[in-house]
């Protein structure tokens, strides 16, 4: 145990370098900075916006439209009296991003039911989604006015009939059924919310797998490159202890690094997310998910955590073997690729296809990739598919044990010194 602790200490010290600490601190600061900037931009977009309005009509109806916009938190810069060409020039140089042109005869056209065309000119100074929000809001104000005007007209012409019944003679009510639970809501919304909830799993998995595996592969490759491996293999310590110390150190540092990155990522997303939540975008979603039982209880979180943990162990064991194949630090950088593909395949498939519904050979191929299982866990938990869950956990555990036994065999045999995978070079026998 003393020898193992000695080795583990050395492995951790090697991984926790000044460069790593600086890079983590820099990431946290950078993401927080970006988050704060984004937050300000979102606040600006959600808050009071300045638009220019050229009212060529000057009727009570056109004034009502502008008052409606003011009540929707718009500051109106009145361009009345200018020609359209001149009015277009004003916002081009000014602070407003949008020019609204209300044509002459707008008010009377509403009464005669011969609609006049209103024009909007959006000045795109950036191409961010937030930057284009002003025009979306103006459009929604116009639709609200359209709705209100048509309702008034229908109520006047056909008293006693609900205008909504005329405009939408067929009404629909959507229900979602998940197993034995049912709730009112759309399937689209549920799918969207589930994908939002599950978004973090692949991100966490990708980050930890990437960091930890890279560390293990580099740790073995660096021992080879610095010619320290041979000495280490002849000291009185079990080969399995060497493997375990390297994996444990990389796992710990990888977990902490991923945690720090997630914290930074949260700081970044918080900038936008908080405002979105405040705007009530998710309102109603949570209660719908609860009604359908689509949320994690403690058991759910434990199972998900266990699945992620096993996936990390599998990645570390694979990285250990790939590290043996690497000749030096440079080739170690390439060795991470097969692992990354193994994580990316189920990730992208889970984005575009229902893994449970694909053809059997494809399904078997996906299930054979150990990293597919953490992606499937949340779905299977929601659907109460415990056979798949336990099957996945057991499979990952078996793969981990097989890989560790294989890694231990490699470390205990000549292969640790003779196994090499060269890129672009011919293989040569050991000296």
């Amino acid at each position: 145990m003393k020898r193992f602790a000695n080795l583990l200490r050395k492995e951790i010290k090697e991984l926790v370098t000044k460069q790593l600490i600086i890079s983590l601190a820099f990431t946290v600061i950078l993401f927080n900075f970006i988050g704060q900037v984004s937050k300000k931009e979102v606040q600006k977009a959600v808050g009071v916006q300045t638009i220019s309005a050229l009212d060529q009509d000057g009727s009570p109806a056109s004034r009502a439209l502008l008052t409606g916009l003011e009540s929707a938190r718009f500051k109106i810069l009145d361009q009345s009296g200018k020609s359209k060409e001149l009015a277009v020039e004003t916002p081009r140089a000014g602070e407003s991003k949008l020019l609204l042109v209300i044509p002459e005869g707008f008010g009377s056209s509403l009464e005669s039911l011969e609609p006049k065309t209103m024009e909007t000119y959006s000045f795109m100074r950036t191409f961010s989604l937030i930057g284009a929000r002003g025009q979306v809001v103006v459009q929604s104000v116009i639709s609200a006015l359209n709705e209100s005007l048509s309702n008034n007209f229908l109520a006047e012409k056909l008293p006693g009939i609900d205008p909504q019944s005329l405009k939408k003679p067929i009404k629909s009510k959507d229900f979602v059924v998940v197993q034995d639970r049912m709730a009112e809501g759309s399937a689209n919304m549920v799918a969207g919310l589930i994908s939002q909830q599950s978004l973090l799993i692949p991100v966490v998995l990708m980050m930890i797998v990437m960091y930890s595996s890279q560390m293990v592969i580099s740790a073995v490759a660096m021992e080879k490159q610095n010619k320290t491996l041979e000495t280490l293999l002849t000291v009185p310590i079990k080969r399995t202890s060497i493997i375990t110390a390297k994996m444990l150190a990389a796992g710990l540092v990888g977990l902490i690094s991923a945690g720090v990155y997630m914290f930074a990522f949260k700081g970044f997303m918080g900038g936008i997310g908080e405002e979105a939540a405040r705007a009530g975008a998710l309102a109603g979603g949570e209660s719908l998910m609860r009604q359908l039982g689509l949320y994690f209880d403690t058991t759910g979180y434990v199972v998900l955590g266990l699945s992620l943990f096993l996936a990390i162990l599998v990645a570390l064991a694979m990285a250990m073997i790939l590290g043996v194949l690497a000749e030096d630090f440079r080739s170690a950088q390439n060795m991470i690729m097969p692992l990354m593909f193994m994580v990316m395949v189920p990730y992208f498939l889970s984005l575009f296809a229902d893994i449970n519904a694909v053809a059997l050979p494809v399904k078997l191929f996906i299930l054979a990739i150990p990293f597919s299982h953490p992606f499937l866990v949340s779905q299977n938990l929601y659907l109460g598919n415990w056979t798949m869950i336990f099957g996945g956990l057991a499979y990952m555990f078996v793969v981990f044990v097989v890989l560790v036994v294989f890694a231990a065999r490699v470390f205990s045999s000549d292969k640790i010194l003779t196994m090499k995978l060269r890129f672009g070079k011919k293989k040569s026998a050991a000296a």
Partner: protein
Amino acid sequence: MTHVLTVRGLKKSYGQKTALFGIDFDVRAGEVFALIGPNGAGKTTTLRIIATLLTATEGEIRFLDRDHRKEPDFVREKISYLPDEAGAYKDMKGLDYLRFMANFYARTPDEEKEFVDRAVSIAARRESGEPSELADRLGTKVGTYSKGMTRKLLLARALMTRPTLAILDEPTSGLDVINALEVREIVRRYVKEGTSVLLSSHNMLEIEFLSDRVALIDEGRILDSGTPAELKAKHSAQNLEEVFRSSLR
């Protein structure tokens, strides 16, 4: 004289390629035994097998009268191995590296201190008793050391535990004259304290001064073995280089 190591019929193949064709030799207690031969002769493969890094394809090795293949943990406790062109962890300070390595062998903190002190005395003091260039540098990172300094640090590491058998692969390879001389002095000094040494070199002249007995090896076969004086007399040669040339005929 007691044998520390007995090697009989040692063969090693890497797939189709055979590196050793069945070699025999012994290392006696308290002697320096050298395997000499050109590059690719099979010296490093032999040393790696004895250091438990590679497994023999055939043959028998007995270390302190125990089966070397069956008891690798026992062997690792009693030997130390200095590979050819070995390095130390570059981000570690010299002293920290010695402590790290001592920790694997020491059973108590006192023993660890004893090992480290011995290593410091080997690495930092010359034969004359004057401090070596490494004396003031043990507190700095290994990555900043010259090749000679790194080699002396590693040699000190290999000898600090007073191993029963120190296996040194080309201990002076790539060193300048002064550093090579210091390394040879260190080896001779510590053999007197009871450590047996099995070393390899392609520098036959230096081996002549350093070794008690030598084995000439070429293309995986031992050509001849004995003390340098015996071999020179047998082959009517002035030095071991001439002995080697004569053995090849």
